[in-house]
């Protein structure tokens, strides 16, 4: 029942956006962080067949059904996380990057990430002075159940709070920063381990960048409306 085909027409040399009718699942296996349950992953594959030509492109992605929520606790001022409705005590590790010459391989990522899971951690925080981590990093966080807190490329020391104070308005090209941020979100957004996007380390990005990031990353309107009662 989890196979759906829809007809679309794409104009010559054109580009469209298509949203499938939502696929319904009854009690699917959920994805859980390390120590809370299994990291069940489904294979989602999309193919496009062109009339009179045949298969034209395909795409696959391991996907985990999970709901991650986080809010600031009024009592402590700390951020409380919930996964699939269950509160989770965050045991997190700081992450800069795996190698200063960027010799990053699947084997290296698997080893690093599994090490964090073996240390009984359930979150890795990617510091803003390092990288937007790579799909292979997220893939192994998906497999070993490490939630990821991913910061964008702003740090207090370099952007307005360091000694001497420098770059109070962040990078010179704000449009370039937002273009890179949007492309990074598209690269990483389907990984179940991705838990939180954060503007920067110890610093709020410049107002225009921060406003654009908050707008682009706002909760999808879909989540503000209850789906109609599912037809039987």
């Amino acid at each position: 029942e989890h196979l759906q085909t829809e007809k679309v027409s794409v104009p010559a040399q054109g580009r469209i956006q298509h949203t499938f009718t939502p696929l319904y699942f009854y009690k699917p296996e959920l994805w859980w962080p390390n120590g809370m349950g299994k990291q069940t992953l489904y294979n989602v594959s999309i193919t496009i067949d062109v009339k009179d030509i045949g298969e034209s492109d395909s795409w696959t992605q391991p996907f985990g059904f999970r709901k991650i929520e986080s809010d600031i606790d009024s009592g402590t001022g700390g951020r409380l996380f919930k996964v699939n409705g269950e509160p989770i005590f965050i045991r997190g590790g700081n992450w800069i990057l795996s190698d200063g010459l960027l010799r990053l391989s699947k084997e290296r990522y698997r080893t690093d990430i599994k090490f964090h899971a073996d240390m009984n951690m359930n979150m890795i925080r990617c510091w803003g002075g390092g990288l937007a981590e790579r799909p292979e990093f997220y893939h192994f966080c998906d497999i070993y159940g490490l939630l990821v807190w991913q910061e964008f490329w702003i740090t207090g020391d370099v952007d307005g709070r360091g000694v001497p104070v420098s770059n109070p308005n962040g990078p010179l090209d704000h449009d370039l920063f937002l273009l890179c941020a949007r492309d990074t979100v598209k690269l990483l957004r389907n990984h179940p381990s991705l838990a939180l996007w954060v503007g920067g380390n110890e610093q709020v990005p410049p107002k225009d960048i921060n406003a654009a990031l908050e707008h682009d990353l706002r909760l999808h309107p879909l989540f503000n409306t209850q789906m109609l009662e599912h037809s039987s």
Partner: protein
Amino acid sequence: MAEIGKKTVLDSGWIAARSTEVGYCGVELTTTNPPSIGADSPWMEAVVPGTVLATLVKNKAIPDPFYGLENETITDIADSGRDYYTFWFFTKFQCKRLVNQYVHLNFRAINYSAEVYVNGHKTVLPKGMFRRHTLDVTDILHPEGSNLLAVTVHPPDHPGSIPPSGGQGGDHEIGKDVAAQYVEGWDWICPIRDRNTGIWDEVSISVTGPGKIIDPHLVSTFFDDYERVYLHVTTELENKSTWVTECSLNVQVTAELEGDICLV
């Protein structure tokens, strides 16, 4: 040869050379004067994906900066200037396309800007360490399938310099660019001499028909205490052809049971 919808990763057979030591331009390198490694040649085996320093360490042109005080012996970009760490990367790739097929060359990340040459055709890649680049190379591939690719990679625009006292992020100049800031050094790491210049993430070739799937987005919503769940799938579609295409779009979700058995 890449199948439809699959990508061929180009992660072997790369060579590199310092730009100031190469006498040919990108057009010549990818047509009449393809480079090769040799006794008097400035070209060396390259690490792609990787950085310029990774390639130099692999060829023992510099010591590994993370042993002892070796990093102190490596010239910092602030002292050498940006040209010293502006490098050519070159490789060959096979790709024979059929009728109604389209071929793209994909860079998942380059630091910081670059010019790409394929069989004598130049494309300038815009700046930014954290962005993907996709080039449609369909019409510039060689019919017999053997193609030449050269990329010249420039360091960040503001590599900055490291004050004698070091400190968090050196003189903070790197913050003017959209790039990793740790490379000027921090309290936990020494400065990276090339500021991580290079083709630092995956390079691939992908082949499609006229219909191309771009950046799908998967979102799940939950109701009735996680009993009723919906998967929302949105994708961009591009039609590479010059005629309207009628397409069937399929989405399939399979659960991998233990081992290789799939439940559909």
